[in-house]
């Protein structure tokens, strides 16, 4: 049985070096292709757009105070002005039970997922979107992307 082989062995062996060398090389390649090489645009942050299943829900240009909301979502988007920006709440059902709330920071020209009612709340841990980056809410298929700029953005680690 395989289990007896491991029961009588040590937790590490010399042959593990081959595995770890392959792993280290793979990680190096990943850093090279997805962090070091990609040229990220340094364009100014103009605004953001929120899409749901490829359909634009709302778009906003920083400083304009004018939110362009799609006619199908007029009743589902609520905007509240707060200090240094806006809270934009998007309801994903007619009864207004399920929601995602974005915080729009006018001073920094960024947008971040502030809160949501789903259990995992993974999107609230994602980096804020400025001139680059993206926030994606998988359960609701909501995507927040910048109006200008592109490229990969390293994640906020920690």
């Amino acid at each position: 049985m395989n289990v007896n082989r491991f029961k009588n062995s040590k937790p590490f062996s010399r042959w593990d070096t081959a595995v770890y060398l392959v792993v280290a090389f793979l990680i190096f390649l990943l850093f090279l292709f997805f962090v070091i090489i990609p040229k990220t645009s340094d364009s100014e942050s103009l605004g953001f757009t929120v899409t749901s299943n490829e359909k634009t829900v709302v778009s906003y240009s920083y400083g304009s105070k004018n939110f362009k909301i799609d006619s199908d979502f007029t009743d589902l988007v609520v905007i509240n002005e707060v200090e240094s920006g806006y809270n934009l709440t998007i309801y994903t059902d007619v009864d207004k039970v399920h929601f995602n709330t974005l915080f729009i920071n006018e001073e920094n020209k960024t947008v971040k997922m502030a809160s949501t009612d789903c259990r995992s709340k993974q999107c609230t841990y994602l980096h804020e979107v400025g001139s680059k980056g993206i926030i994606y809410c998988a359960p609701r298929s909501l995507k927040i992307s910048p109006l200008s700029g592109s490229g990969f953005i390293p994640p906020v680690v920690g």
Partner: protein
Amino acid sequence: MKRFSTSKFALCGLLSALSTITFIIEGLFPPLFLPGARMGISNVFILLSILLLGAKYGYITLAVKVLLGSLLSGNFFSAVYALPAGILSTTLEILLINYTKKISLVAISVAGAILNTTTQNLIFCLLTNTVEYLSYLPYLALVGVLGGVTVGLTVYLVIKILPTKYFVQK
């Protein structure tokens, strides 16, 4: 010839339940360093299932963990990318266990963990059309190393401490 033995099935059920519970509990905590990153402690029971019972029971434990765990945690979408990634990593671990006699359990676990995390990220990016998240790949691979070492050492200690009489006989 029996294809499934009752005692093995019972142990498989226990390991599947433990894996599912651990998966759900892990999901209640904030992500580890990165969004979507977990330590993967639930994989301890999948690896144990492979070692104690065999390949097909390992796949059963994986399927129960991913499908039931995703359903009970309220995020069934995660099963779409977690299941194929889990199948790939479990297959890699089974191949390494059966065809390499010199590599330790920790290294096998690390290889499986990295394949799991990177595949999940790739599938997620393809499904949601968010290629920007590919920049998470190298960091997820590093988290995979950490998780793999933890899982591998845990399984090694369990195998080491557990008396042979508790292993299900073939």
